[in-house]
């Protein structure tokens, strides 16, 4: 992997070559590269996979989805689908699959920082409603508000007219 990367995307600073020669060389090497990457067929395959996966996210909405009363299952499933799609895009469209080992140096720390960043938000932001002032609680929407609105819709004075 490492060797392949260094040759195909390697430094192009070569002494004793004119710009045209460099260009020619780069065309040739990229051409060889292209064969190594598997060409357009692979991109088409990735594209179809991405479309299929997007449709799969909608599967959680269908009556055939067995966990309709447990949204957490659907959310996990959709995130798994999204991660798969993201991996496909990163690996094939962004050519990371064929890159040398530097890819780990840039992507893994960034991904870990991203994860920590999100986790660090949990105590202050995610748990912000565990302890709130009375005034804030008074104006805060709760699940009960939605229930009242639904009740108004089905049992209110206009219910007969509305339905």
């Amino acid at each position, binding site marked *: 992997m490492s060797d392949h990367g260094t040759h195909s995307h390697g430094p192009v600073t070569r002494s004793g070559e004119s710009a045209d020669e460099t260009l020619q060389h780069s065309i040739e090497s990229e051409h060889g590269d292209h064969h190594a990457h598997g*060409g357009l067929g692979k991109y088409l395959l990735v594209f179809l996979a991405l479309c299929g996966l997007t449709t799969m996210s909608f599967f959680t909405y269908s009556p055939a989805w067995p966990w309709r009363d447990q949204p957490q299952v659907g959310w996990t499933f959709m995130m798994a689908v999204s991660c798969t799609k993201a991996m496909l895009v990163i690996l094939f469209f962004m050519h990371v699959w064929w890159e040398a080992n530097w890819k780990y140096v840039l992507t893994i720390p960034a991904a870990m920082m991203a994860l920590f960043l999100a986790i660090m938000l949990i105590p202050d932001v995610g748990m912000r409603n565990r302890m709130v002032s009375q005034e804030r609680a008074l104006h805060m929407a709760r699940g009960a508000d939605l229930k009242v609105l639904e009740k108004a819709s089905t049992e209110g004075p206009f219910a007969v007219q509305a339905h």
Partner: protein
Amino acid sequence: MHAHAASISPGHDDGHAGDDGHHGHVTLQYQPGLPLSRGKLIMWLFLSTEIMFFAALLGSYVVLRFGAPIWPKPHHVHLSEPIGAFNTFVLICSSVTVVLALEAARANKASLAKIWMLLTLLLGTLFLGVKGYEYSAKFSHGIYPAMPHSRIYERPDLYYGSAVRARLDELRKTPVGQVPSALRDPADAEAKSGDTVDLLQRLDAAPADRLSADQQTARTRLQQIQKIVMSADQQAFDMAVVADQVMPLPAEGADHGGGHGAHGLNDAFRWLRLPTVIPGGNMWASTYFLLTGFHAIHVAVGLLVFGIMCTWTLNAKRVGAIENIGLYWHFVDLVWIFLFPLMYLF
């Protein structure tokens, strides 16, 4: 890597012809730290900062959402999943076209690369257009990230009731210039610019043939709602009734209708613009506009670069540039891949 390292040794600074002749392959004079071009290295460094930028936004969204006591369902805020899915499809297609532009440029087929590039530009513009349409649908329902444009109230309480009253008072003193065409009077033409019109009274007086059947029902409802909000003896439930009439929230089971089944007073008369109740709606609007807005800015920047590139000859000399903007574009696609389920399907 090792091959490069070996080539750096004193005395190799000049004259490589001998080496080439000897080993039959090119020896490098200069060893950059990483086996990739500078432009690509910078692009990847930039993308790694972008990963953290969007991770912060997406992370905040997830944490805010699951820390909130209540969060609106997609249909409560007039989100349409098919439109979101269509936009996902558009972005995936544009990712493919940009990859094909790169491949064409690698093969030195400049005109083919130009076609793919133009197609990418077109798809990106389509994405922004659809996004703009979605935004305008939100705005027309009074969903804005902040006051004074936002008409979202969190609960159907007395504060909501007083906001409805305030809006009704405002409508009773509508400047002549702002009277909707359906309620315009021939006498309005002679009115002075400072004059005001009682729109509610005018609606009550409007002949039935100028209103549709829906609007006639809505007119009766509006009269009843005015009675409720003006009443001295208000119950908490009354405000919920008002909110449900102004803009009903589609019920749990009704999520197959695309959110168009429910029709409120604000839909019957666009000029009413009464305050609405969406529990959790304000936080939703803030996160929605922030996340999709930043994503849209990224799309717009990409389109700008694609537009510039469309004026170039996209031959093999431009492979590096196309690859770099391609990386950026795929990243923008990547962000949407997460935004779509988080925003539209959760």
